[in-house]
């Protein structure tokens, strides 16, 4: 997978507040890339910079391996922070402006309005829309002209639970069609449910980034139980790759290297003549991980 967005050493401050500190990462083509971080961690600043709305103090970025920025943006559908539309124009007329600037998607307007459930209100003025409808229109505008990349900053802001589920489903569908999606959010379960890659920001510093499996699996725990707990513990202490064993009631919680799989644990115990009565891979939830990371 080649990278579709490459960010190199970007720093940005607002007066005395440093919003981003030397952030670098790549977004591979075809992934769903989640940018996570608490409020004020620099997510929107990051996206604002790669969309040329904000200027970085230091560092640079490239889309599609170095395409001219405004040409690249015409092929990107993006929603940054708030839905931005002309209040006095209808949804349909607003999309005409988006399409005129992008030089694509003029004939998609009906279709995207249907996709985000606003077709019946297409001739209503933007100022008559509720928060959720404004957000839907912004997502619709991002979909104009079949973009290859979608950049979504807090896309579920203002949406009701049904709307949130719809957007999640939409993201999955679009990603299946090969569209790369970059999504910033503080709603962890959102990210966890759809993302293949994450980058975690805290106070402008990139804490970690990479494929969700790698980033999260390294700290996963395996739970095992057998009739003879003491014998099991003794056996596992000798197993390579097991870093820590914790006894909890009569269940052992193993903290393992990333290379250790549940199958290996099972095979090892069987080889030692122990039959496991319980074997479970307990993925650390992103939320737990996130809290651990950002509270350090």
């Amino acid at each position: 997978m080649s990278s579709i967005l490459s960010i190199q050493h970007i720093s940005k401050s607002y007066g005395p507040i440093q919003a981003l500190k030397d952030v670098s990462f790549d977004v591979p083509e075809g992934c769903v890339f989640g940018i996570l971080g608490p409020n004020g961690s620099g997510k929107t600043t990051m996206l604002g910079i790669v969309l040329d709305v904000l200027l970085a103090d230091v560092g640079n970025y490239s889309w599609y391996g170095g395409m001219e920025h405004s040409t690249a943006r015409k092929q990107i559908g993006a929603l940054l922070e708030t839905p931005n539309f002309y209040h006095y124009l209808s949804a349909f007329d607003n999309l005409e402006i988006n399409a005129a600037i992008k030089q694509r998607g003029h004939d998609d307007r009906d279709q995207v309005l249907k996709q985000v459930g606003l077709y019946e209100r297409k001739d209503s003025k933007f100022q008559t829309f509720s928060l959720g409808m404004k957000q839907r229109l912004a997502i619709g505008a991002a979909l104009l002209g079949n973009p290859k990349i979608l950049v979504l900053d807090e896309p579920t802001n203002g949406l009701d639970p049904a709307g949130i589920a719809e957007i999640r489903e939409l993201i999955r569908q679009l990603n299946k069609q090969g569209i790369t999606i970059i999504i910033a959010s503080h709603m962890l379960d959102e990210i966890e449910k759809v993302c293949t890659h994450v980058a975690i920001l805290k106070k402008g510093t990139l804490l970690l980034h990479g494929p969700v499996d790698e980033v999260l699996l390294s700290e996963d725990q395996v739970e095992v139980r057998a009739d003879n707990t003491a014998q099991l513990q003794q056996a596992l202490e000798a197993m390579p790759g097991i870093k820590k064993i914790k006894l909890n009631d009569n269940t052992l919680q193993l903290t393992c290297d990333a290379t250790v799989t549940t199958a290996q644990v099972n095979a090892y115990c069987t080889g030692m003549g122990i039959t496991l009565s319980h074997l479970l891979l307990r993925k650390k939830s992103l939320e737990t991980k996130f809290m651990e990371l950002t509270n350090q």
Partner: protein
Amino acid sequence: MKELLAIEWLKIKRYRTFWILAGLFLLLMPLWNIEVANGMLKFGGNAKGGLNFLSTAYSFPEVWGNLGFWGSIFIMFLSILVIILTTNEYAYRTNRQNIIDGMKRIEFFHAKVALVLLLSVLATVYLFVLGLAFGGVNSGSLSGLFSQFQQVGYFFLLSLDYLGFALFLALWIRRSGLAIGLFLLYSMIIENIARGLLNSMMDKPFGNFLPLQASDELLPFPLMQMAKTMMGSGTGINMTTYATITVAWCAVYYFAGRMLLLRNDW
């Protein structure tokens, strides 16, 4: 440029405020001048009598300078329109959206500059049409039509000066109410104070070179011009100087506005 103007047109063609302000400009300018020609401003007498000093001002060739002078007041409508259209982008954050959708920052700026140029051209064409109508009716012939025709050009420069100043102010202040307030205060009060101070302190009337005053000097109040010529109290500064300074101010608005937009966060 054409594509940029086409996008600007999409933004304003269904914007009621645009049509109201542009319509008022188109409507009030001739109505006002009809009233002035009919003797609204005169010395002595009642509605029927008295001396109408400006009665000859609507014949060729004086009609150009006279319409141009009144036009410098009506151009305020269009200046406020430019401020509203520009600060709207900030209020709705559509300036950001335009960039996100793929405009370059410089294109966003040039779209507004193109709008200012276009409005100036249209206002000048309108002045020309009004001049033909007033001059034709009052002179009864077209003789002398071109003898002071450079004043139509001065009106174009004046429009560009006012609208360019308004655009710069809007890009700088970003908020509609404050920008309009400052524009009106500056054009009607602050500049006059500054001009008076400068002119009294210096041996040359440098106050006349202030941003909007420079172009106002191109189209002075017709009676004032007559009086000055009669008393020989001219400033000794010719129109070419004022025209050059007006163009220089327009260049300042352009480069300052460009710098603001390219260097700052949006």
